[in-house]
């Protein structure tokens, strides 16, 4: 096997974690050779479907958010997907494999964890405390916000104070106004979301046009993705990004990584020596690679375990009057944190977040009906399209060892072992879903909805792949320490959602970026 010239730091994966880490390390050090290996290629916005009249069917096929659905539709050349056996999970994982990772097809809701989310064991007797607290991460949240470009409003009483947002909030539209008024009538908290979406142009990026389906990729780059935020600056600072490079093994000798084996677009395997390895391949890809590299320290090692998703339910209210239809960023309008902190009288511990979002396109609305053909189905489409308001209940998942990522004995086409997930919804989470659905019913009653439609645990909602290489102070119960370093091999840093020991009830990407910046500072202090 060919042995390439060594590098100082090698990063696997170019998504939120890998990109932020690469940029920060390059900023804080001089003369280091930093290399990122990315299994996919650069996003080609000329090929994104939102230019085309078939964009709706693209979203159900080669541009679906699930890699399995994309592969079933013949694959998408822009995402170097691998199949995930998700038959033992009601929640199906969603991700993207290219430069930018899943920030290419995410919805860019950008909240932060709250202080209590870092202390669930101390405060509520569940989960585990993080090795550090909110205040330690806050400066990195601020920096990450600046790099990504965040619209929103400061002053939210449900969260610690934060600097003024650099861009004004996204429009709420008629639907959002209605929702805000109802929250006010109920006396429940709500706030326009922090969104990693520009509402005014910024150098090289346009402002949001409210075109709707962010998950199909943002052509004007209003939605932040790391291919247009961190990567241009990281590359200008000297980081090398090598695409179409699939890492199949982290090589470890005597408890330290010596480099990685990867195959490039010619399918030839090479050895890339590195003094330090950073793995940022998401909550499934990271444990897959590290388990395949023999980095589990026995059967009780938490590597691959404690998979968390934030299980959700949707309730859609149908209204007699017309709302906005599928206009505006689909996942970013407003959120309520009224029930985000623990109140044991509710029958569960920890909390739920509510998000009011925007409608899907006409085809998606028609296809999800049951039955979805015949006169009654078509009447239902007419009654719902531009007349419905989706209310999302997002629960805080808690770590359970049985929820996990595991690898098989056979190799997949990409040269790594087959990967599968086992996941079940806990009793606590189930109680949260019930609670949230009941609150949604109250909401829509107050809003004057004609009727509601409920979807408990819709499968294709596994955006957040978390917890599978948990961080902690005790090596016996954690995979990495508070600097992201593996207990099994301290010159390996893990830098993505897999390190989160608990996950709050909010979208995690802002936290993943902040963690990456913090971990990069720790490494820079040591080797810079």
């Amino acid at each position: 096997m060919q042995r390439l010239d060594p590098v100082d730091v090698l990063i696997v994966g170019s998504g939120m974690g890998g990109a932020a880490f690469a940029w920060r390390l390059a900023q804080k050090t001089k003369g280091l050779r930093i290399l990122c290996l990315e299994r996919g290629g650069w996003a080609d916005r000329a090929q994104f479907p939102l230019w085309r009249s078939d964009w709706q069917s693209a979203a159900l096929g080669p541009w679906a958010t699930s890699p399995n659905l994309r592969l079933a539709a013949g694959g998408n050349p822009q995402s170097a997907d691998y199949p995930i056996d998700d038959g033992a999970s009601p929640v199906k994982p969603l991700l993207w494999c290219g430069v930018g990772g899943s920030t290419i097809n995410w919805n860019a809701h950008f909240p932060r964890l709250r202080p209590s989310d870092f202390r669930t064991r101390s405060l509520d007797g569940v989960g585990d405390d993080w090795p550090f607290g909110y205040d330690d991460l806050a400066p990195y949240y601020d920096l990450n916000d600046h790099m990504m470009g965040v619209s929103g409003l400061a002053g939210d009483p449900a969260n610690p104070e934060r600097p003024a947002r650099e861009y004004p909030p996204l429009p709420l539209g008629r639907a959002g106004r209605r929702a805000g008024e109802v929250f006010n009538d109920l006396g429940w908290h709500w706030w326009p979301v922090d969104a990693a979406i520009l509402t005014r142009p910024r150098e090289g990026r346009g402002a949001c046009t409210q075109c709707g389906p962010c998950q199909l990729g943002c052509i004007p780059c209003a939605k932040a993705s790391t291919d247009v935020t961190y990567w241009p600056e990281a590359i200008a600072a000297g980081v090398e990004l090598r695409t179409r490079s699939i890492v199949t093994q982290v090589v470890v000798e005597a408890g330290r990584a010596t480099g990685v084996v990867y195959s490039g677009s010619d399918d030839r395997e090479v050895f890339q020596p590195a003094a330090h390895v950073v793995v940022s391949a998401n909550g499934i890809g990271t444990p897959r690679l590290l388990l395949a590299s023999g980095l589990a320290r026995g059967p009780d090692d938490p590597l691959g375990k404690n998979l968390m998703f934030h299980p959700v339910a949707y309730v859609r209210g149908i209204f007699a009057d017309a709302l906005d239809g599928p206009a505006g960023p689909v996942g970013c309008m407003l959120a309520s944190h009224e029930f985000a902190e623990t109140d044991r009288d509710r029958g569960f511990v920890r909390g739920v977040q509510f998000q009011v979002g925007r409608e899907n396109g006409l085809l998606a609305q028609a296809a999800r009906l049951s039955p979805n053909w015949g006169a009654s189905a078509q009447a239902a489409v007419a009654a719902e399209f531009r007349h419905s308001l989706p209310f999302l209940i997002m629960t805080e998942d808690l770590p359970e060892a049985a929820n996990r990522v595991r690898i098989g004995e056979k190799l997949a086409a990409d040269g790594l072992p087959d990967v599968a997930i086992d996941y079940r919804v806990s009793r606590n989470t189930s109680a949260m879903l019930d609670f949230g659905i009941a609150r949604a019913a109250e909401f829509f009653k107050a809003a004057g909805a004609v009727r509601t439609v409920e979807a408990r645990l819709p499968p294709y909602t596994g955006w957040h792949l978390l917890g599978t290489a948990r961080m902690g102070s005790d090596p016996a119960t954690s995979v990495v320490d508070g600097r992201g370093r593996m207990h099994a091999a301290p010159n390996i840093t893990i830098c993505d959602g897999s390190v989160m020991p608990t996950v709050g009830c909010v979208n995690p990407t802002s936290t993943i970026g902040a963690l990456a910046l913090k971990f990069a500072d720790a490494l820079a202090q040591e080797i810079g």
Partner: protein
Amino acid sequence: MHESLADALIPGGPLPNGVVAPAGSMTLVPARLAALLAMPEMAALAAELEYLGDIAGVERRQPKAFARLVAAALTAYYEAPQVLAAFGWPATPPHPGGYPLEPFDSTLLEPVRRREAFWRR
């Protein structure tokens, strides 16, 4: 047969909220169904659908193939410009035009701003 099948799946006509939708046969749905039912793996479904007697029964007996058929019909129908127009939505793709929305009105937040901070340390 494909026109009749298209209309059975998507009849069109006057619908709630004032929508008057084209029948399935007035769009590309029949052509899409014909192409799909000509595929070898769809032969059993095509044979059952030939007389259009009991479509719900066919769905029960061949759920996977029938779901594929309906998906093809819905796609051809709900992406058709005249259908989008009938449902009150522009036929042009979302980019580059986007859509106008009522701007954010911060006065709505006044009751929330009056609350004390309620997150836990």
